[in-house]
């Protein structure tokens, strides 16, 4: 069990998402940064899709009522235990009675706290992900509050051996001396170059807008959340105003409403949309979008679907190898 002593700005329980219900208008949700979420789970011996705590910009203060093996991945929200920084991208043994306190983001914007066994909130429609608007998933379908208690699922096998390895007599936490190859870690910055495929309505935009889209930079607006990011830059306009029939949208769809300011749809996006899509963010760059915060600059580089899917295959291979390597460490 973990008790929330003080909530962060927006802490929600997230897993790999609620798939299979978009035909009923139910959003997919899930971790905004699927890469960090998965790696965090791998590091504590989980399969990868288990529920974690997703925190944004300012993290919570959490009291561990039991010994646990945790990991923190994604943006740097300055995790500390008893004033001592806790290393990220590593498994960490945390002793019963210790308080894990996050601060404000100094790099990136979202961090994931994984716990061996996963957070054991009820499954709603195949997922534990919190969807605040429909008040489902997570803890009563809402962000964490002071006094909330997070149940931890029992972990067996590997996590037990991690615990055994790292458990010491005195310290309130301990991490191993190895870490993930830095080449695999996301580059957190204030400027992100994001790979984008042409959207289905790309050709409806005028030439100036198409050029601006690839050549100018866009600023992430403060009106950005798990549903979507508004970005400001050159105004994007259609050759002629057309009324579109609503159709499916996905994570990474870049829609352009009549005001010319793009909206990049994210994890909690609606299932369908009626605005023309100029682009589609490459799946392997969801991390960059999820870690971008208000004021950060985004520029878009064109890729084809084939290139994008090749990069996905490489990432998948890397993740499989990473998981295998992590498991070896604890054998």
């Amino acid at each position, binding site marked *: 069990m973990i008790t929330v002593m003080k909530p962060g700005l927006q802490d929600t329980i997230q897993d790999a998402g609620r798939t299979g219900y978009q*035909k*009923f*208008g139910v959003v997919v949700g899930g971790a905004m940064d699927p890469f960090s979420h998965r790696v965090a789970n791998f590091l504590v011996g989980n399969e990868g899709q288990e529920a974690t705590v997703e925190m944004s910009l300012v993290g919570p203060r959490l009291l561990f009522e039991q010994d646990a093996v945790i990991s923190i991945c994604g943006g740097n929200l300055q995790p500390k235990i008893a004033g001592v920084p806790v290393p990220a991208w590593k498994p960490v043994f945390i002793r019963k009675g210790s308080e894990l306190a996050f601060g404000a983001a100094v790099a990136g914007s979202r961090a994931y706290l994984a716990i061996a066994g996963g957070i054991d909130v009820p499954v709603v*429609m195949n997922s534990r992900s919190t969807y605040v608007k*429909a008040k489902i998933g997570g803890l009563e379908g809402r962000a964490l509050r002071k006094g909330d208690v997070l149940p931890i699922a029992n972990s067996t096998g590997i996590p037990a051996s991690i615990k055994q390895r790292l458990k010491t007599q005195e310290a309130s936490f301990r991490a191993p001396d190895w870490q993930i190859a830095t080449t695999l870690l996301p580059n957190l910055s204030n400027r992100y170059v994001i790979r984008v495929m042409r959207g289905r309505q790309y050709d409806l935009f005028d030439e100036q807008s198409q050029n601006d889209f690839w050549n100018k930079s866009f600023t992430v607006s403060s009106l950005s959340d798990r549903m979507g990011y508004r970005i400001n830059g050159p105004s994007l306009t259609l050759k002629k105003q057309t009324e579109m029939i*609503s*159709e499916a949208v996905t994570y990474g769809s870049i829609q352009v409403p009549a005001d010319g300011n793009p909206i990049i749809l994210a994890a909690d996006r*609606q299932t369908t949309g009626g605005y023309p899509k100029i682009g589609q963010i490459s799946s392997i760059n969801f991390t960059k979008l999820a870690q971008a915060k208000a004021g950060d600059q985004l520029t878009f580089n064109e890729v084809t679907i084939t290139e994008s*899917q090749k990069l996905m*295959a490489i990432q998948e291979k890397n993740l499989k190898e990473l998981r295998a390597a992590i498991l070896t460490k604890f054998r």
Partner: protein
Amino acid sequence: MRYNLFPVGDQAVLIEVGTEISPAAEKIVNRIIARLEELKPAWLIEYIPAYTTVTVVYSVKGFNEKNPYDFVCTCIRELLENMNEVSVREQRVVKIPVLYGDDHGSDIDFVAAHNGLTREEVICIHTSGEYTVHMIGFAPGFPFIGGMSEKIAAPRRETPRLQIPSRTVGIAGLQTGVYPIESPGGWQLIGRTPLELFLPNTDPPSLLTAGDRIRFYEITLEQYKEMRGGVE
């Protein structure tokens, strides 16, 4: 059957069967859904039907194809052949009770005045229509409903409301619909139904599905309260 395939990012393919909303396009969409449900291909994660399109979300992880997009497109083309034998689900008629006006539908007098009608006439026209659910989308269980009479059409509010209670029935232009969950919105609110449209704990989680026929009928405050069973 004529159709076009388009990518929607690197994990979805959109099947477009028409460029205008029509009963013919709707029929083909329903046939494609039936076919997908019947065959359940291994690479299919889920599908999202709309007015003239069906978008299939596929898994890139599952297979070792060099070019998953081309592979899935080939599979879809095969799947869409011989579609004639697929039987489509029968249309249901779902009756939706509505408590019209007052606090539950505070814009009903605006809708009446806009069309030179009385409140009672608006209710009469709204409840005499035969409607069709074209698609579920935008929000959990949110039905896109066609078939409203233009006699009660009304423009969206100039300033959208920040919070519309769940189960509120509204009108926007020629559309009518029900907000399943509390959300912001610019529709003119005419009433509220005691029925839940989004049912997270049942399977399926939506009261309505595309293709359903709908009829609205008026209820009193007492009936509304009774149907809610004391739950608000």
